[in-house]
C-alpha cells in the first residue's frame, strides 16, 4: 500500500495542529485507487502486482476533542454526520495530533478506529498520527508522522509520501498525482481555460510552438541550399585563383631567366655569387614554403608584425615572408570569416613562394586561412584581426595582386637581404643564425 498527500494539505493539517493548545484530531478526505502493474521479465511470462494507493486530498479538522465520541469511546453517529456533512463518503481515514507522546495508537484511538471502520464502511481506514517532540530547552522541535492501517494484522505502518518534500538532491519539481479538488480552483480554471486551450483541449501555446518549429526547419532547409550553392561558386573561384597564381609563377620564372641571361651576357663573373645567393634563398624559400604549407595552415605572419604577434607565430618558424618591408603587412592578416562569405585572398607575401606545385588545397594562401577543417581561424588570427581595420584589409585584398605582380620584378635583387634582415626581427627573437639555419 502506498499513500500520498499533497504538500498544501499536509501543511494545512500541520498548521491546524500546531496552533492548537492541546491534542487535535480530524478526518482525512480523499480516495483510494487500485493500481495493477503487470511486469514482464525474461524469467517469467508476466507477473501482476496490485497496489493500493491512498491519496489524501483534503482534511476536516474537529473543533474540539470528544466532539463525536463520549468518555467511553463510543462514537455518536449524529455528531459524526454533523461534522462531516456530505463529505462523509470521501473519508478515507482520520488523524490525531498529540505532543510528546509515543508513536503508537492509544487505547481510545483503537476503540474509535474500530467503530469508525464499521460506521463509515471503509475496510482499510487509515490513521495518521502526528507526534510533536520538543527538546527540553525548546531548541529543537520535531514533527513526526506515521500512517497506520490498524485493520491489518501485519505491516501496519505505511509510508506517506509528500511530493516535492524531502529529497533535495532532486532538481526537478515533480508534478503530483494528487489532484486539486478545490471547487474554487476548478471554477477559475474553467473560466479562464479558453485563453490557453483550443477546442481540442490542447494548449494553444503548444500549437504555436510547433508552428515556430516548422518555420525554423524550413528556413534551415533553404539556407542549406544557399550554402551549397555558394560553396560551389567559391570552389570555382578558388580554382581560377589557383590557375592565375600558377600563371604568375611561370611568368615570373620566365622573366628571371631572361634577366639572368642578359646579365650573364653583360657581367658574367662578378655576379655569380649574388646570383647564387639570390637563388638559394628563393629556392629555399620555396622549399620552405612548400614544406610548410601542408603543415601550417595558419598564416605565416609577415615579418614586420608587431612583436606580440611575432611571438605567437614563432611556432611556425618559417616565416617566410618577405613583405616585412611593407608597413601594412600587419593589415594583411586575414580576419575570421563567417561560413559562406567570400574569402579574402591571402595577404601574405607567401603569394610569391606559394605558387609551388605541391600546393594542397587548404594552403595558407587561401583566403580561408583557418584550419583545414573549415573552422574559423584561431585566436591568433583573431587577435591580429582586432588590430587591423577592416577597410584596410579590403584595400589590401584588392591591391594584393597588384603588389604581387609589381614586386615580382623588384624583389629578386633585394629580397634576399630584406629577408635576411626582416626575418629575425619578426619571427624569432633568438637571432639570425638560428633562423637562417632552420631555413636552409
Amino acid at each position, binding site marked *: 500500500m502506498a499513500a500520498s498527500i499533497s504538500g498544501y494539505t499536509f501543511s494545512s493539517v500541520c498548521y491546524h495542529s500546531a496552533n492548537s493548545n*492541546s491534542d487535535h484530531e480530524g478526518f482525512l478526505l480523499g480516495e483510494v485507487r487500485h493500481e495493477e502493474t503487470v511486469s514482464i521479465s525474461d524469467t517469467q511470462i508476466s507477473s501482476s502486482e496490485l497496489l493500493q494507493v491512498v491519496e489524501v486530498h483534503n482534511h476536516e479538522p474537529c473543533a474540539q476533542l470528544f466532539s463525536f465520541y463520549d468518555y467511553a469511546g463510543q462514537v455518536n453517529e449524529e455528531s459524526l454526520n454533523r461534522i462531516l456533512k456530505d463529505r462523509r463518503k470521501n473519508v478515507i481515514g482520520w488523524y490525531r495530533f498529540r505532543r510528546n507522546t509515543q508513536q503508537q495508537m*492509544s487505547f481510545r484511538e*483503537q476503540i474509535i478506529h474500530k467503530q469508525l471502520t464499521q460506521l463509515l464502511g471503509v475496510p482499510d481506514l487509515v490513521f495518521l498520527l502526528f507526534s510533536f517532540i520538543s527538546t527540553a530547552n525548546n531548541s529543537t522541535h520535531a514533527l513526526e508522522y506515521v500512517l497506520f492501517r490498524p485493520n491489518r494484522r501485519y505491516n501496519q505502518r505505511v509510508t506517506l509520501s509528500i511530493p516535492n518534500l524531502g529529497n533535495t538532491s532532486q532538481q526537478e519539481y515533480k508534478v503530483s498525482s494528487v489532484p486539486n479538488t478545490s471547487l474554487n480552483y476548478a471554477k477559475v480554471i474553467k473560466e479562464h481555460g479558453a485563453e490557453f486551450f483550443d477546442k481540442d483541449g490542447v494548449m494553444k501555446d503548444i500549437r504555436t510552438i510547433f508552428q515556430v518549429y516548422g518555420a525554423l526547419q524550413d528556413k534551415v532547409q533553404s539556407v542549406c541550399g544557399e550554402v551549397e550553392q555558394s560553396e560551389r561558386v567559391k570552389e570555382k573561384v578558388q580554382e581560377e585563383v589557383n590557375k592565375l597564381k600558377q600563371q604568375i609563377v611561370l611568368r615570373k620564372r620566365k622573366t628571371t631567366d631572361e634577366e639572368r641571361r642578359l646579365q650573364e651576357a653583360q657581367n658574367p663573373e662578378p655576379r655569380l655569387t649574388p646570383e647564387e645567393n639570390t637563388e638559394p634563398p628563393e629556392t629555399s624559400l620555396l622549399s620552405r614554403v612548400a614544406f610548410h604549407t601542408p603543415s601550417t595552415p595558419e598564416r605565416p605572419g609577415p615579418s614586420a608584425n608587431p612583436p606580440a604577434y611575432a611571438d605567437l607565430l614563432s611556432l611556425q618558424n618559417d616565416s617566410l615572408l618577405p613583405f616585412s618591408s611593407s608597413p601594412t603587412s600587419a593589415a594583411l592578416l586575414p580576419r575570421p570569416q563567417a561560413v559562406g562569405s567570400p574569402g579574402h585572398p591571402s595577404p601574405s607575401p607567401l603569394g610569391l613562394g606559394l605558387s609551388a606545385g605541391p600546393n594542397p588545397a587548404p594552403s595558407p594562401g587561401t583566403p580561408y586561412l583557418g584550419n583545414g577543417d573549415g573552422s574559423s581561424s584561431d585566436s591568433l588570427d583573431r587577435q591580429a584581426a582586432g588590430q587591423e581595420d577592416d577597410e584596410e584589409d579590403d584595400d589590401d585584398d584588392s591591391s594584393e595582386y597588384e603588389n604581387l605582380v609589381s614586386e615580382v620584378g623588384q624583389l629578386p635583387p633585394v629580397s634576399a637581404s630584406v629577408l635576411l634582415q626582416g626575418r629575425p626581427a619578426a619571427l624569432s627573437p633568438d637571432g639570425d643564425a638560428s633562423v637562417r639555419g632552420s631555413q636552409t
Partner: protein
Amino acid sequence: MSPEVALNRISPELRPLLCSVVRNGRVGLDSTNCLRVTDLKTGCTSLTPGPCCDRFKLHIPYAGETLKWDIIFNARDPELPPDFIFGEDAEFLPEPSELPHLVQWDAGDPECLLQLVKELIQQYHQYQCQRLRESSRLLFEYDSLLEDPNYSRSMEIYAGHKNSWTGEFSARFLLKLPVDFSNIPVYLLKDTTLDPGEDVALLSVSFEDAEATQVFPKLYLSPSIEHALGGSSALHIPAFPSGGCLIDYVPQVCQLLTNKVQYVIQGYHKRREYIAAFLSHFGMGVVEYDAEGFTKLTLLLMWKDFCFLVHVDLPLYFPRDQPTLTFQSVYHFTNSGQLYSQVQKSYPYSPRWDGNEMAKRQETCKAVEPATIFGPALPRQIHFISI
C-alpha cells in the same frame, strides 16, 4: 522523579489526581512501594508558561514485572478523562464497559484516576489469564488455583511473551499467602525505618517453560515481617517438586511460613515465661532484663563469697534453641582490659522444661559452674548466696 517534583510540574487542575496516585497509590498485591511517575511532559505549545505538564509514564508493579503505561491528559481540558498507551502490550484492549471509572469519569474526585488504574489492572490480569491458554499445563495450574478460595482473589499472573529463540512460553504467578501475621509481637515489627504498610507475604513462582520443568519459586516478605522472622537467611522454602503443581506446593509453603510465625510467637511467650520464672527465683539477684522482647537477662550471683555476673541470652527460636549463658567475673580483668567472661552452652537443658523448671535447674547448675569456670583463679571459698 520524586513525587514532589512531579506534583510541582503537573498542571494545577490535574494535581489532585496525581497526588492520590503518588502519595497513596498502591495497586496490586505488591504494595510496598507506591506507584512511580516519570517522563512528565506537556501537550501544550512550548510557549505556554508555568506548570502545564499533562502526560506522564506510570510505573506499576505487577506480578514481579513493572508495567510502564503512558497516561495522557489535556491541560486545556482537565475535565476530560485520560487516554492510555499500554507500552509493549499493544494487544491489550480492555472493554470500556468494564471500566466504570472511565465511563463516569469525575475529574473532581481525586481518587478517580487511582481507581481507574486499579480497574485497568484487573482487566490486565484477565487479559494475561487469557494468554495462558496457549499452554494447557499453565492453564491447569491457573484453574486449580482459581478454585481454591484462599488464592483465587489474591493472584497476579503475568504471561510473558513467547521467547522468539526457543519458542518457549514463560509465565509468572504471584500469590499472596494467607498467613496471619497479626499476632506477631509488636516489638518485632516496629524496628524498621520504612513505613511498613501492610504485612504481606508473596510467593512468586516463575515457569520458564510451558511444560513446567523449570520452576523457580521465590518468597517475598514485607520488611517488617522479614525482620521479625529473623532475616532473609532464616527463610528457606523448599524447591518446587518436579512434576508437582502449585495447588500442592503453595499450601506447603504457606504452612511453613505459618509454622515459622508460630514459632516466633511462641518463642516470645516462652521467653517471657522463662524470665518471669528467673525473676521469681532469683528475685534480688536480677541486675537487668529486657522487658519488651525478653531476650536478655543479667543476674548477679554469689557463690561462696565469690560474686559473678551471669548473662542469659535467649534466642529467637527459644525454646527450640538453647539460651546462651555468659559468666562474667566482677573481680578479674583479661589482658585486654575486659572483664573476664566465659560463655557456657553445654549445660543440661531441655526445651520441654517450663520456666520454673529451668530456673530450678539453673540454680543447681550454677552451684557447680562457677567452680569449674573460675576454678583455678579463684579462692575455694565461694558459696552461693542470692542477694
